[in-house]
């Protein structure tokens, strides 16, 4: 109940915002909003001890039980980590935003979206039901969209929002498909139930496809290569949003998903390679690209991508432990997962601080471009402190928490090379190498952040505002985060025991003891390979930073048009172009073309199938005799019909049509249908009269010039259509399995009191048809009336029909 | 004329009712009508007008005249159609009629048009002049004029 309340509270608060906004105009809306995450954080924190004791909290509320979609809230170690991050970082970000955003902004929108996001994110991590998880998952995309587009008068904001939404929702759709496969394989949407009955899923044909689809969802959300391209553009959002969604929480939803489904998919080769491979690639690509950025926020965005890759790859490495089932050996590989969880938290602390730092700089000097920044150290000492601590932690330097998890990451990559599964023995060495190279780049951009912003010469003329230190309120949140950065370094095992260990139990539910998988974290762990690697990073990093000017042009060697972003734009644009051209080509507004498509389809489908199934049959023996006068009439009709084609004058066309109609009437006579004959005669006459009446307003027939090939096509299509109808008709005539139901109507006199069978059918047996046919006629008559009486006024350029 | 006819119908109906026969049908009614005709004939002088069936007889006479004309001149048109040389000169001529009133004029025009060899193309606004198209103006003008005379007389007889 409490958990459900935690999910609901932000939504309720969001709903109340318009009210509060109107009531308390002179109090910053953020203060009210701040209550929500603070309350939730405190509430959740009370659960920490019980979670650490291995308790879990489950509760099910029925939503759509018919289709197995129920809101099952589930609080365990894994969701605890994330929920604490969401509410904790959330509190700090809102506090920060109170000083960052002026009351002139449309705050009610901002906080509404933010609360929406918070609720959705809590929903994601608390949901056991895959469908409900998906519901909240998409809600995070939506609220993220709204937040990115917060300053929607900016073109870049709109573009960024669109890109983010398109990519994350696409991933979500793929994930949905994956979930559905899991459902079909397992018969349940409950993650716990799936895990409880793993064999069924793992032996199903859907296993690998489902895994890949779920990963697509995770990778797009967590900005993994090559889907990361939305994240830099998402930096158009206000900085608190970037700090919150696009570094601390939402982008980690993908990681959460990977962690959550590791018990299901982990241990499979595809999972291992996909998660760790993509993660490592993202780690490298993000750090590599961060170095070339001039915008501090863009730099942080790429750094976030890179760090997310790091965490992702660690989960991938850790999943290998599941391959063996439980053994003491496997515990070694679970360390990677532990490191992942650890770094997840660490990253939130230092990256949150850094984002806020950048926000402060932006706020106070009006630019984030490192080419215009410099020398701010003395003017903004507190901000500088935050920057140094955050960057150092990110670079993996002691005495900050980043150092600990970074070392553990190196350990994991080194350990994995020892495995002889998944062909790791041959190419496993790539892991530590790439990890190291990426760390070098990480080091470089961390140095860039600090050096280019706070050292060097100040350039006041290139800044928007005269620089000075940020107001106190704005500094509170980053300082709290920085405090965590240091605090965790000092007391890592508190975190390990109370927070990380229960999460390990969630990821490896089949392993008996979580304590066993919880290593003792120590800053000093001997003079080992990892430490050498760290030294190497520093040495090479410093060297490369010094020579940055010399090798930076190397980035230019990658042509602008080959960046992923450019390719994305190009694919979108060119497919838009192609789609437009193709669509306009066939939907060209010319009715004749449409008829050609229809007829060609008609002939292809029907004749095609008839040839395929050999449906032709013809048996004239049952036919009635052909009287000579009938034959003559048939020829008259054919002659009239063909003459219509060649007729030059419209009146000829219409009169010949009349001849056809009269001939049809005569056939009705010959074939014993008196009512039809009467009706047809009158109707045909009236129709002909209507033609003549409307000729007053219609032009004379023109000589239609048509090319030979088009005429040939027309003739071919026409003959094909006619032939198809004829062939089906002949086969139909030869089909006599069933007796017509009409015998029944021959009792019309007894049943309906009429001797004219046709009339009794029309007036009684099928009177409903007649009733409606009268309605049809009436509509047509009324329609003709309105068509003539209600004319568009001339010069009335109504947009309605533009 | 109409009055007499209605009385005749009335008598027939009376007869029909008086018979009080459940199987009464059209023949009963016809016999009643016949009886009525007899009665009317006996009493027509009281009405001060002609016996109405006399006019019916005249109508029949008119029709007979017409049918004879129709047949005789049909043959001539058919001949002309089948004549390989097609030796005739069509044309339009006028005719002043003595008849007056819409119905008289109309009847004459109908009869004229029905007889082959002539079609009434226009009637002047005062209903006095017919413009007639003739198949063979030289030959048929005479015969047409002769028939017109006959028709005019017959029509006058009927309507007076």
């Amino acid at each position: 109940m409490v958990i459900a309340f935690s999910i609901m509270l932000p939504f309720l608060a969001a709903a109340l915002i318009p009210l509060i906004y109107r009531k308390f105009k002179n109090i910053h809306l953020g203060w009210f909003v701040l209550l929500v995450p603070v309350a939730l954080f405190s509430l959740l924190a009370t659960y920490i001890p019980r979670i650490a004791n291995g308790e879990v909290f489950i509760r099910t509320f029925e939503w759509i039980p018919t289709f197995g979609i129920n809101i099952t809230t589930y609080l365990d170690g894994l969701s605890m980590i994330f929920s604490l991050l969401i509410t904790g970082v959330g509190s700090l970000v809102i506090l920060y935003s109170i000083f960052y955003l002026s009351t002139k902004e449309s705050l009610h929108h901002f906080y509404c979206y933010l609360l929406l996001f918070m609720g959705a994110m809590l929903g994601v991590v608390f949901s056991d039901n895959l469908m409900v998880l998906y519901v909240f998952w998409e809600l995070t995309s939506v609220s993220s969209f709204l937040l990115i587009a917060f300053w929607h008068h900016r073109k870049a904001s709109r573009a960024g929002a669109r890109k983010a939404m398109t990519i994350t929702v696409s991933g979500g759709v793929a994930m949905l498909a994956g979930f559905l496969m899991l459902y079909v394989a397992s018969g349940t949407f409950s993650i716990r139930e799936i895990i409880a009955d793993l064999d069924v899923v793992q032996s199903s044909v859907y296993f690998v496809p489902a895994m890949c689809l779920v990963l697509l969802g995770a990778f797009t959300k967590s900005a993994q290569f090559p889907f990361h391209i939305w994240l830099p553009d998402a930096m158009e959002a206000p900085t608190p949003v970037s700090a919150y969604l696009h570094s601390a929480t939402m982008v980690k939803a993908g990681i959460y998903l990977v962690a959550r489904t590791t018990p299901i998919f982990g241990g499979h080769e595809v999972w291992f390679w996909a998660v760790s491979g993509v993660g490592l690639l993202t780690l490298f690509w993000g750090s590599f690209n961060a170095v070339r950025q001039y915008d501090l926020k863009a730099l942080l965005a790429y750094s976030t991508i890179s760090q997310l890759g790091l965490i992702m790859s660690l989960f991938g490495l850790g999943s290998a432990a599941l391959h063996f089932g439980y053994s003491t050996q496997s515990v070694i590989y679970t360390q990677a997962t532990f490191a992942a969880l650890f770094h997840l938290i660490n990253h939130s602390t230092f990256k949150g601080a850094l984002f806020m730092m950048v926000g402060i700089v932006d706020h106070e000097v009006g630019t984030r471009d490192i080419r215009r920044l410099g020398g701010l150290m003395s003017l903004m000492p507190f901000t500088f402190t935050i920057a140094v601590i955050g960057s150092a932690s990110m670079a993996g330097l002691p005495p900050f928490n980043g150092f600990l998890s970074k070392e553990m990451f190196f350990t994991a990559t080194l350990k994995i090379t020892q495995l002889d599964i998944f062909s790791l023995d041959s190419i496993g060495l790539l892991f530590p190498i790439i990890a190291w190279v990426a760390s070098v780049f990480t080091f470089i951009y961390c140095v860039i952040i600090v050096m280019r912003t706070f050292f060097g010469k100040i350039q006041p003329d290139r800044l928007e505002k005269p620089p000075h230190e940020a107001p106190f309120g704005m500094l509170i949140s980053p300082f709290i985060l920085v405090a965590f950065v240091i605090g965790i370094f000092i007391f890592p095992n508190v975190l390990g025991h109370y927070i990380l260990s229960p999460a390990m139990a969630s990821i490896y539910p089949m392993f008996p003891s979580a304590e066993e998988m919880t290593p003792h974290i120590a800053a000093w762990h001997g003079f080992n390979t990892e430490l050498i690697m760290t030294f190497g990073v520093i040495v090479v990093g410093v060297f490369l930073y010094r020579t940055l000017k010399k090798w930076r042009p190397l980035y230019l060697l990658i042509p602008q048009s080959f960046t992923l972003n450019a390719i994305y734009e190009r694919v979108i644009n060119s497919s838009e172009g192609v789609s437009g051209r193709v669509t306009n080509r066939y939907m060209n507004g010319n009715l004749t073309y449409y008829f050609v498509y229809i007829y060609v389809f008609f002939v292809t489908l029907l004749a095609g199938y008839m040839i395929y199934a050999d449906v032709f049959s013809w048996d004239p023996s049952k036919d009635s005799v052909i009287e000579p006068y009938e034959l003559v009439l048939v020829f008259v009709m054919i002659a009239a019909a063909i003459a219509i084609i060649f007729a030059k004058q419209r009146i000829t066309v219409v009169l010949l049509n009349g001849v056809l109609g009269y001939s049809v009437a005569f056939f009705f006579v010959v074939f014993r249908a008196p009512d039809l004959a009467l009706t047809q005669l009158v109707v045909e006459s009236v129709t002909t009269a209507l033609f003549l009446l409307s000729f007053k307003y219609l032009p004379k027939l023109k000589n239609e010039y048509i090319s030979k090939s088009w005429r040939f096509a027309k003739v071919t299509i026409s003959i094909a259509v006619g032939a198809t109808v004829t062939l089906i008709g002949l086969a139909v005539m030869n089909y006599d399995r069933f007796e017509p139901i009409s015998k029944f109507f021959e009792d019309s006199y007894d049943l309906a009191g009429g001797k004219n069978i046709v009339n009794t059918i029309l007036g009684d047996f099928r009177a409903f048809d007649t009733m409606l046919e009268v309605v049809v006629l009436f509509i047509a008559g009324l329609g003709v009336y309105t068509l003539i009486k209600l004319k568009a006024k001339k010069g009335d350029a109504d947009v309605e029909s533009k | 004329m109409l009055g007499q006819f209605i009385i005749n119908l009335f008598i027939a109906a009376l007869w029909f009712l008086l018979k009080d026969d459940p199987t009464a049908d059209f023949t009963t009614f016809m016999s009643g009508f016949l009886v009525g005709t007899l009665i009317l004939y006996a009493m027509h002088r009281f009405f001060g007008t002609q016996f109405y069936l006399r006019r019916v007889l005249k109508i029949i006479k008119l029709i007979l005249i017409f049918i004879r004309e129709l047949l005789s001149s049909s043959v001539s048109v058919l001949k002309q159609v089948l004549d390989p040389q097609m030796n005739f000169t069509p044309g339009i001529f006028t005719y002043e009629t003595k008849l007056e009133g819409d119905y008289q004029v109309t009847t004459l025009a109908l009869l004229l048009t029905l007889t082959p060899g002539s079609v009434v193309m226009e009637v002047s606004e005062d209903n006095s002049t017919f413009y007639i198209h003739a198949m063979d103006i030289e030959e048929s003008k005479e015969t047409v004029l002769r028939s017109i005379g006959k028709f005019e007389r017959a029509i006058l007889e009927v309507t007076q």
Partner: protein
Amino acid sequence: MNNIIVLPMIVPIITAALLVFLNNNIKLQRVVSLVTMIFVVGTSVVLLQLIQTEGIMRIDFSGWAPPFGILFVADSFSVLLVLTASLVTMFCLIYAFSTIGERHEKMYFYPFVLFLLAGVNGSFLTGDIFNLFVCFEVMLLASYVLVALGGGKIQLRESIKYVLINVVASWIFLVALAFLYGTLKTLNMAHIAQRVAEAGQDPLLTVVALVFLIVFALKGGLLLFFWLPGSYSVPPTAVQALFAALLTKVGMYALFRTFTLMFPLQPEITHTAIGVMAGLTIIAGCMGAFSGRDVRTIATYNVIISVGFIMVALAIGTESAMAGAVYYLIHDMLGKALLFLLIGTMVLLTGEIVVKNMNGLIRIYPLFGWLFFIMMCALVGIPPLSGFIGKVLIGQGAVEAEAYVLLALAFGSSIIVLYSLLRIFLASFFGETSINEEDKIRMPRGAMVSFILLTICIVGLGVGAEGLAVYVNDAAYTLSNPAVYIDAVLNTNK
């Protein structure tokens, strides 16, 4: 007596005919048509409830037992559609009250709308294939008039294309009926199903089924949708919305009945064909929506996409796909009506149709903008809005049937839907406002009412999906077990 089944069709007809006498009293016309719609909606709800207790209901007109007479059959599938169609029509009428204008109202606008609905409801309810043709014609004739009503140059130009294609399609329908009668010698849909089963659907019957496929594909916009984009973008907004909500649905409904009830026995031919057509429809719709530059083009191609989406369910044919299709049909009627009402109102307010020429509407009309946003999310299938559950169930069916290509196309299409609608939202609602506060056109009050009601339905259908689940499941069960339907119709003891 089950006479109640006929009310959703006959009451609109009678009202329409009565309104002809009131054409100068506009207020009264509005009241009467609204009351009629409320009545029809109420009747449908009652009917839906009755079916749950009494099973499939039918009314044999004049008391002639099937297969000889005409009858209406009410199962959950048809009544759900009747209910939705009537609801949507009611909302569109409310919209029309404040937007359509006196000229149209005096020219029998309301009667034509009611006739349209009568045709639609009749098509959903009839159990006789020839009567289906007649009901189609009632609907089509009304739509012909509505599409051309009061039209200028372009409206008439598109109208004639629409009418001509549909006329040809109708005559092909008759050809199909002739072939059907020539082979099966009966017209009652259940009886047809029985005879087809008896004959084992031999190839000739499949040919007949394929002719019906072509006919209903034309009507439903499945692959043969060429009439659709032009005609959907020219009439007045209320009419556009009605068209978008109702017209293709009737064709799709007929396809469902044809290939689940009457000709279900050669799925390797018929359902494969439907699957291929559905896939191509999705692709074509996506291309159109993706490249569209004006709001109407984007909206109309979205209609085409959803046709493909729903037909994927038919091609898949599992029970969950059927349930999904039912949900999605309901969702799509509501959603497309709202979409067209909203974009029509955008055009009305700005006098523009090209997306990039409208800007910043959300500042002037905030609620309007957010309703658009919600509608967009619903159409994309973002939970917990209406498109979600249908999409999930269809996807589930696709997975069960291992129809991965269709699954990919169907799910992929929602991304294009998103992309295309985002284009509108971002460009037209977001961005700098180009209209001054003073110059702004007042939002018609009735319009807002209809938007809000439709949005409530959309949200309600998503969040309260369970509320409909019992009906939807029943509908899906009947669709995948035609014997239930056949038995209900041909069992004369009832």
